[in-house]
């Protein structure tokens, strides 16, 4: 059969890519094969634009059991205790249909974690939207939050933290990233199809025409106009089936009935079949007539690339097939033996006795194109960095404080996280609202601290510095609760990689992440790249979202951000650069400026601060600890006060906007009993970290010295701002 001349282009494959496919096959691909290549060689699945750069990331460390390349990274947080940690993006689907886009985003990352044999025990949702005064934004916020809430709550995985950020650049390209933490129960699983003759079993939902809108051009003549209607690009999540899938798969892993397994996500059945065979150096032969279909007369290409949700592919020793099917039946899950593992090194797809695809597994999974895209530092960056950062003094310091406290980025996100079950599994020692979440692992006495951070404004001003700041802030959040930063996962959200300036932002970002991770000893265990977040030529800020994971060996010793005791001393750890306003919340909110250079970061000073925070927590010195980030010292103090429901008074002379709102990094506000001030000082001195007493906890007002206001006034602004802005622009 000969293909229409530019069919491949409509499928997003270049002429060169088609030629490469011809060479691998030694012939023209069939429609079905072309569809399979189009998804497996897509940017999303093949990493063709990012792979060269990602190689520079440090991925090894004594506690890293599995690095990039599998469903999720695996980190040993304590002897014999391992966790899986991974972040994924679901940006575009969430823009098209916020509720289902976000819901299926949760489902996807949860199956990644599950594919390692780990029980998913926590989610985090870094979210980015356009300006909050735009009704469209509010529609998206409501839909995305409801989608995450209804899916995550139903499958019984707590959503313990996240981010909600608002910038104009995300208006047409909202970012919905989701991170998931899992704990290895019995044994680690791998996505490998070992063992000639082993059975290949598809478990879970039936397969429909979900998410193949793009490939509709392959529809053969008998399909009428409504074919696009027949192939909705929107996928509806089914959390109930996902929950059954989790329990059934974990039971299969516990019973050691699986040789290997992998989730189905982008690429549908084409992905795990080719990847598992390729990783094991084997082949696979499957009959798609055995796939449990949701709709009649589906064509082979539809079955092979359908992205129907809630499915897993398992490779099983023939002797165990009945046992596997029995477990699936108990959990009321569909399970079908599709075929078997071969030695051929090829993925052979038959329908009945017709061979519809026959391609080398490596060609699909491993030999996708790799591009060294042009990289060029954009001219506009110099102008941007040269401009004043917006650190001018405000007309009124108190008003400025309230403006920053009530800005969408800083104000409490309670409206969001109260819609998430953040307590199930009885492990949430610290949940949303703090620095890092502290999650005690089920049935174990150790906990992990997890956080997600992605300072897009800093990265826009300087991708390299911004990326380092992102890693530093994430690690600081973990250290603030007393956790030892161990490893990161990351989601790299960018514009169009075919543009040299976007690729420059990307390469600079990866370089920054790599340097910071080396300096802080936190290797990269994996992540995800999302390109083409761009509309009408307008790209988002370069937005690397860093998911940092640390260990907390004594959960009871974890430190919270809330001021706890009247009379405690309030101390600032770390040096303040009073000029660090580039990309700061103050500059944006008070002076309407996003320009200049981001705050200068010294990674040695950062590491030293972390050592002080961790040691102080271990020795039980702190009543509270909270890192300084958005809004600087003023907001850090206010958040600790509001969380503790008690005020403070600063004794330091003449606190100016520069002292209070500068966002110089590597700083934290701690409180401790007066008796311990000297011990804290000594601890800080040993690490070369400046430590000064700012004042003391107590009273019912935030007394900054140069101005002051009642705790309850601040609370009203902080707690109500977000919902007020939401409902305001709904009306």
């Amino acid at each position, binding site marked *: 059969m000969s293909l229409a001349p530019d069919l491949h282009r409509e499928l997003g494959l270049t002429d060169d890519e088609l030629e490469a496919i011809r060479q691998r096959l030694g012939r023209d691909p069939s429609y079905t094969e072309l569809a399979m290549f189009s998804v497996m060689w897509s940017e999303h699945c093949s990493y063709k634009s990012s792979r060269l750069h990602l190689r520079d990331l440090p991925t090894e460390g004594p506690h890293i059991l599995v690095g990039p390349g599998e469903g999720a990274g695996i980190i040993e947080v304590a002897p014999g205790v391992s966790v899986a940690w991974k972040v994924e993006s679901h940006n575009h689907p969430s823009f098209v249909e916020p509720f289902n886009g976000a819901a299926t985003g949760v489902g996807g990352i949860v199956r990644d974690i599950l594919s390692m044999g780990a029980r998913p025990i926590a989610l985090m949702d870094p979210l980015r939207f356009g300006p909050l005064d735009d009704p469209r934004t509010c529609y998206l916020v409501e839909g995305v939050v409801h989608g995450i809430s209804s899916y995550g709550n139903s499958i019984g995985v707590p959503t313990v933290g996240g981010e909600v950020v608002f910038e104009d650049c995300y208006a047409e390209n909202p970012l919905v990233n989701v991170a998931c933490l899992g704990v290895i129960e019995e044994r680690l699983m791998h996505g490998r199809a070992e063992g000639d003759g082993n059975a290949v079993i598809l478990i879970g939902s039936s397969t429909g025409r979900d998410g193949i809108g793009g490939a509709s051009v392959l529809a053969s003549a008998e399909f009428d106009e409504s074919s696009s209607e027949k192939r909705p690009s929107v996928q509806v999540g089914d959390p109930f089936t996902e*929950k059954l899938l989790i329990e059934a798969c974990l039971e299969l892993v516990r019973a050691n009935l699986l040789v290997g397994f992998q989730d189905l996500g982008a690429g549908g059945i084409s992905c795990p079949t080719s990847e598992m065979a390729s990783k094991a150096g084997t082949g696979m032969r499957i009959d798609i007539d055995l796939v449990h279909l949701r709709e009649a007369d589906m064509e082979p290409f539809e079955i092979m690339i359908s992205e129907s949700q809630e499915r897993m592919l398992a490779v099983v020793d023939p002797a165990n097939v009945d046992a596997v099917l029995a477990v699936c039946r*108990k959990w009321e899950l569909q399970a079908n033996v599709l075929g078997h593992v071969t030695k051929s090194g090829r993925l052979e797809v038959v329908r009945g006795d017709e061979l519809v695809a026959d391609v080398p597994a490596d060609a699909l999974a491993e030999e996708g194109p790799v591009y060294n895209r042009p990289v060029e530092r954009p001219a506009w960056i110099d102008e941007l960095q040269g401009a004043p950062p917006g650190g001018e003094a405000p007309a009124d310091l108190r008003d400025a404080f309230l403006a920053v406290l009530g800005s969408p980025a800083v104000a409490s996100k309670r409206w969001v996280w109260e819609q998430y079950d953040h307590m*199930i599994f*009885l492990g949430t020692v610290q949940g949303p609202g703090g620095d890092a979440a502290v999650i005690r692992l089920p049935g174990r006495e150790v906990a992990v601290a997890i956080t997600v951070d992605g300072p897009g404004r800093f990265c826009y001003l300087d991708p390299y510095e911004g990326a380092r700041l992102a890693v530093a802030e994430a690690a600081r959040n973990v250290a603030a609760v007393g956790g030892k930063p161990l490893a990161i996962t990351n989601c790299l959200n960018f514009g169009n990689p075919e543009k040299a300036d976007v690729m420059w932002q990307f390469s600079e970002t990866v370089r920054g992440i790599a340097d910071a991770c080396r300096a802080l000893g936190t290797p990269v265990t994996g992540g995800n790249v999302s390109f083409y977040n761009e509309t009408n030529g307008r790209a988002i800020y370069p937005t690397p979202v860093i998911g940092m994971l640390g260990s907390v060996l004594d959960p009871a010793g974890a430190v919270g951000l809330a001021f706890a005791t009247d009379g405690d001393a309030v101390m600032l750890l770390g040096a303040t650069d009073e000029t660090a306003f580039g990309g700061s919340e103050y500059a944006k909110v008070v002076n309407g400026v996003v320009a200049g250079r981001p705050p200068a970061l010294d990674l040695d000073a950062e590491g030293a601060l972390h050592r002080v925070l961790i040691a102080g927590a271990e020795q039980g010195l702190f009543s509270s600890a909270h890192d300084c980030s958005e809004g600087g010292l003023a907001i850090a103090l206010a958040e600790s006060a509001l969380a503790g429901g008690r005020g403070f008074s600063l004794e330091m002379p003449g606190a100016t906007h520069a002292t209070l709102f500068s966002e110089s990094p590597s700083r934290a506000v701690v409180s401790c009993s007066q008796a311990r001030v000297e011990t804290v000082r000594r601890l800080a001195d040993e690490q070369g970290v400046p430590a000064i007493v700012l004042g003391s906890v107590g009273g019912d007002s935030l007394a900054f010295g140069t101005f002051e206001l009642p705790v309850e006034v601040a609370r009203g602004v902080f707690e109500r701002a977000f919902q007020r802005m939401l409902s305001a622009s709904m009306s």
Partner: protein
Amino acid sequence: MTPRVGIVVFPGSNCELDARDAFAALGAEPVMIWHAETSLDGVDIVILPGGFAHGDYLRTGALARFSPIMDAVRAHAEAGGIVLGICNGFQILCEAGLLPGALRKNAGLKFLCKWVTLRVDEADTPFTARARPGQELRIPINHFEGNWYVEPDVLAGLKANGQIVLRYADNPNGSLDDAAGICNEGRNVFGLMPHPERACDSLLGSADGVVLLGSLLDHVSNRTGVSV
């Protein structure tokens, strides 16, 4: 010998492990019971845990009440045995007719996961014996359908019989008469929206849930001579 607590697991339940761990920590012996079973094999207490049985599709609890195990649960209840439905379990007991009323979407049309304060308005039940009348308990809620409703005349009867056991100090979901937890006329079947199993460890924010779960264990220990 220690009280045996049977925890019924429906497809889509998700708080069964939490219930298991909370009761185990209180010295009871948890027994997991799959919904397709037909026997409770002699457990002292039956728990219908929280979650989303059958995805909460159609209506919360609508499909779960037809599970095979529910006949045994009904028989246990009719024989005076203790049955406790937590959150989704409460919804299932209402759908099954073992407790009066039905649970509608929260008045605010939002899922709510937060700490609330409950007031014990009936301290003379097996579920609240450890509490003082009027005692306040800090226990989290976690639901979208916790807005309890019952016909006015039925409500009058329930109040007269003191079957509204727990009330919200500050009604979060529009529930009729601020009801957070109720019991049947025989005072052996209980349902509540809040999650006492999530409040049995001060490291997690509160241990007030022990008052309620502990009361049930006391009750069966005294009655059957088993001890905790």
